């Protein structure tokens, strides 16, 4: 957590002032019982109403000043923590943007969202509470103790013992309760999962008349949750009674010793009253202090998760060559790849090549490594072994910026970004491209009717992730985005899976006729999408099991034959191979 202190550097003034004002408020608060003691010992006893009035006015003034101090402190704390959070988040986000995909995978992609949105807030909140309470609570707790020592040494000792004991109680109960509470949360998660599974399988459950069995299983989880809840309840139920006992036993001790001391004249009655007041202040602040410690430990766990991101530096080295002059020829030379957190390779020993303007088809089932192949082509990842060649050179030699202008990939799981259709297409076309160029790219990608269906045309709004567009619209727009870039290598990874057959056929026609200079890598599960490719790579479970033209593969590759048999009329497949 300390490492993140650097984000406070623009708020040094606030960092000093916030706790200082907080301290002032606490000091004024502590002074009040002393004044009350004076009122009783001198004012009431002597019947000095003037002293009483003067003291009361003093108390009111102190209280008002205290309020002003408190509010000032809160403002500074709010300002510094919000500024801290924003600086931290900006930096974190920028850092994540600079990482390579392999680094992101290693950190855990989905966790990055919670790190940016949640963990930063957790730390920010920790900072806020720290500056509000770190001086105040200990100051009140130990200040009360110091005041007690000032009044009388023996009384101070009683305070010391009480504070240590109370602190131990609060801390122990909290620790045990928090640990057990994790168990409750896990049990609740199981309830959630069980219910979700039940709803997912509702048709099968009813088909097999399993409703009763499901209820029994749910009942067991539910009972387990109940048991855990009651058990945690028993522990946390101890907190209030124990601290109450502790603080009030301290009170008894203060009065008992006080009585003796007043009897021998070493203490005054008003001072006993003041001590009683301090006792009750201690308890309130002690509980706040324990809360703060718990909060800080949570924040520091979050800070840990953020530092993990900051400690990850980009693992992919940039090349120096300019890829803008490279032609679109592409080749895999004995390429293998294993994902960062996986032990089995997703792709092993794949080799193929394509001259500029040629088309390579890649076919295989789910999990056969097709998408991995696409990602290696555009250097989302680097191959673990072997070489990926573009324009006769290893793609690692090129600078990433120029490489990315030379090749585009369209994945099945298409990403659109909030903004407008135009802003999305401009990602590919660049900020200065004329609108006509965007429209032409859309026409090639069979997306003209998407534009036509929106009254605002190119200006039509795109919501987060493109959720206001259908799957087919998203796919066509993302193909348009890729085409707008005029790449020399275009990789389509199941990019037409959401299109109907007729549209897909038209798109296929455009790709093979209107983009003659562009090298195409078409990845699909459908034979119809790749059968006319110059060469086809057949993948099965990460391994290359066939390479050649459609006709060659029908003769030589049993896996390819099987795929074709399930998708093509038998007449087309037979006549090849053994029969």
């Amino acid at each position, binding site marked *: 957590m300390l490492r993140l202190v650097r984000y406070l550097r623009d708020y040094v003034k606030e960092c000093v002032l916030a706790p200082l004002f907080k301290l002032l*408020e606490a000091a004024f608060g502590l002074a009040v019982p002393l004044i009350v003691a004076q009122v*009783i010992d001198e004012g*009431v006893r002597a019947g000095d109403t003037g002293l009483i009035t003067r003291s*009361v006015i003093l108390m*009111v003034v102190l*209280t*008002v000043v*205290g*309020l002003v101090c408190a509010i000032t402190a809160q403002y500074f704390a*709010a*300002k510094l923590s*919000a500024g801290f959070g*924003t600086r931290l*988040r900006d930096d974190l986000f920028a850092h994540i*943007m600079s990482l*390579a*995909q392999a680094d992101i995978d290693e950190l855990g*992609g989905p966790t*990055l969202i919670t790190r940016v*949105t949640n963990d930063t807030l957790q730390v920010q909140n920790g900072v806020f509470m720290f500056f509000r309470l770190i001086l105040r609570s200990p100051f009140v707790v130990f200040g009360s103790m110091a005041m007690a020592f000032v009044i009388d040494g023996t009384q101070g000792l009683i305070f010391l013992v009480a504070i240590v004991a109370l602190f131990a109680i609060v801390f122990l109960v909290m620790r045990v309760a928090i640990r057990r509470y994790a168990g409750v949360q896990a049990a609740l998660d199981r309830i959630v999962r069980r*219910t979700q*599974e039940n709803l997912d*399988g*509702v*048709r*099968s459950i009813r*088909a*097999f*008349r399993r409703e009763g069995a499901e*209820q029994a299983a*749910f009942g067991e989880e539910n*009972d387990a949750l109940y048991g855990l809840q*009651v058990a945690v*309840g028993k522990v*946390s*139920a101890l907190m209030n009674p124990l601290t*109450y*006992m502790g603080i009030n*036993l301290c009170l*008894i001790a203060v*009065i008992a010793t006080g*009585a*003796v001391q007043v*009897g021998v*004249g070493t203490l005054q009655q*008003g001072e006993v009253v003041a001590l*009683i007041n301090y006792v*009750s202040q201690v308890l309130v602040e002690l509980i706040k202090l324990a809360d703060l410690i718990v909060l800080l430990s949570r924040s520091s766990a979050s800070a840990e998760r953020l530092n993990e991101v900051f400690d990850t530096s980009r693992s992919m080295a940039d090349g120096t060559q300019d890829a803008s002059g490279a032609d679109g020829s592409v080749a895999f030379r004995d390429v293998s790849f294993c994902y960062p957190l996986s032990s089995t390779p997703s792709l092993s020993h794949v080799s193929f090549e394509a001259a500029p303007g040629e088309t390579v088809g890649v076919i295989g*089932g789910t999990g056969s490594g097709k998408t991995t192949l696409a990602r290696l082509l555009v250097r989302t990842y680097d191959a673990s072994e072997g070489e990926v060649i573009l324009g006769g050179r290893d793609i690692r030699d090129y600078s990433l910026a120029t490489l990315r202008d030379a090749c585009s990939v369209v994945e099945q799981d298409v*990403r659109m*970004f*909030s903004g407008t259709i135009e802003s999305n297409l401009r*990602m590919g076309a660049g900020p200065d491209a004329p609108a006509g160029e965007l429209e032409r790219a859309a026409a090639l990608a069979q997306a003209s009717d998407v534009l036509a269906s929106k009254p605002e045309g190119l200006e039509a709004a795109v919501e*987060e*992730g493109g959720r206001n567009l259908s799957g087919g619209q998203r796919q066509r727009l993302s193909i348009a985005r890729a085409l707008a870039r005029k790449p020399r290598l275009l990789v389509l990874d199941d990019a037409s899976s959401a299109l109907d057959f*007729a549209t897909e*056929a038209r798109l296929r026609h455009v790709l093979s006729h209107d983009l003659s200079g562009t090298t195409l890598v078409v990845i699909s599960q459908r034979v*119809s999408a790749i059968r006319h490719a110059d060469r086809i790579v057949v993948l099965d479970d990460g391994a290359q099991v066939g390479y050649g033209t459609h006709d060659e593969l029908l003769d030589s590759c049993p896996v390819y034959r*099987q795929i074709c048999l399930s998708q093509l*009329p038998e007449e087309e497949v037979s006549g090849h191979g053994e029969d």
Partner: protein
Amino acid sequence: MARTEAASKGTVRRTMRLMGAYRAEIVGVAILSVIVSSTTLVLPVLSGRAVDAIVGPGDVDMLVVERYLAWMAAAIVTTAASQWMLTDLSNKLVYDLSRDLRTKAFAKIQRLPLSYLDSHPSGDLVSRVANDVDLLSNGLLLGLQQMLTGVLTIVLTLVFMMGLDVTVTLVALCITPLSFVIAAAIARRSYVYFNKQNESRGALTALVKESMEGLPTIHDYGYEDETRERFEELDEDFRAVGIKATFYASCVNPTTRFVNMLIYIGVCLVASLRAVAGLVTVGEITAFLSYANQYTKPFNDISAVVSELQASFACAARVFDLLDQAEVEPDAPEARELGHVEGDVALEDVRFSYVPGREVLHGITLHAEPGMTIAVVGPTGCGKTTLINLLMRFYDPDSGTISVDGTPVGDITRASLRGNWGMVLQDAWVAGGTVADNIRMGRPEATDAEVAEAARAALAAPFIERLPEGYDTVLEPGGSQLSAGQRQLLCIARVMLARPRMLLLDEATSSIDTRTELRVQEAISRLMEGRTSFVVAHRLSTIRSADQILAMRDGRIVERGTHEELLAKDGFYASIYKAQFESA
């Protein structure tokens, strides 16, 4: 507005009725609350009396002091013990109540018609069963533990203070409203800013989610800087509104503390002046001061509890709403069990709509003789899935009849009808439990040998035998340890064992992995032998071997016949066939 108020009143009353089942516990909670708040309040009186006996040097009545200290000790122990029992008792009450509510909600889901389940996001239902019940119980707990003691504390404090001195009490009473006014004013401001902050945070989160999920695309297009700028803009908005929201929220405590302090000082002033006049003792001043200290606290607690309770009643309303939904219409009283069937299935002019007025099946008529294979083909949304829903009686048709062996399905119990169908869907469902339990699902009385036999017939035996504990391997709900293909083989084994006469198959649209895929295909064709089968077909081989193909479009059967007949017709079927299976 008035309506939601009435609804929420209904919710409160209903929650109370639920709690009525715990009458004994509630009486216990009430008694304990009275004990806790009165012993807590007696303490300052006792310590005040003790202080009164400590006047000055040589003027300390130790006997009196000791007597009051002993009383104090007794009060402290009583308070602590009753407080613990109070918490424990209310925990048990509320957790028991929420367990009960969860069981009811889950059981309710089992009885809801699919029309409800299909039209409500499952995440929402899950959250009602799990989170809403949880939030309700949190609110009720706070209510039970703090509301009663809070109110009692305020009332008793005033009574005790009145007992000590009326004038001083009136001073405290007069300043109190100030606390409410200030707190309400701040709360209003901070509520506005908190909403703004939440909005701003929502926008920020949406952008982060979008950017993280689309990171490869951002990298691909070199769009890092643009994305970062957008983020920084939103983050700056969040900072600006965050300062205000945090600031106002954090002002509540200091200001209420300020008002408390004013009450404290006011009490001190008046009490001291009256002490000078001899109307109040010094010990009574200390008692007053400690009352003044703690009497405002319950106000804060109660307002926190009230807002917590409001939130939890909103949750309760969502749970009750689920419990109030109409259930599946029960089987007709004269409905009979369907015994052994031949598998003759007929639909006569069946019409159906999910939403009244928007018919999705327009008069479907078909007849499948025992043992026939019917392949249903057509584009997405043509009504294929709806047909399955009607055959299984997940839904009932608006008009027309569906009959099995000549008996309309309305005259058959749902359970026995479903027992006669075997169903294999695309995403095969696996229950938590052993592999053997999963296979046995369709016929619980089957022996181990029969289970193994069915697995062999379904070609599932090889992978099951490779599992660490074979047939006794425990599967997670959802079967996450198995591959999609293995889950499907398991479901086929399940149907094999049940030996139904009629089958419903929903073929996978895309291949799973080439080798398992072949096995699944083989297992399915074994399964179909001699059974009446309806197949939502995607594979050419299945379609071609069907006895009859139904080509559906927009809720109508537009063509029917064998593959050759339909190709010769060169109509709708021929056109889908060409687009899908022949290349351009």
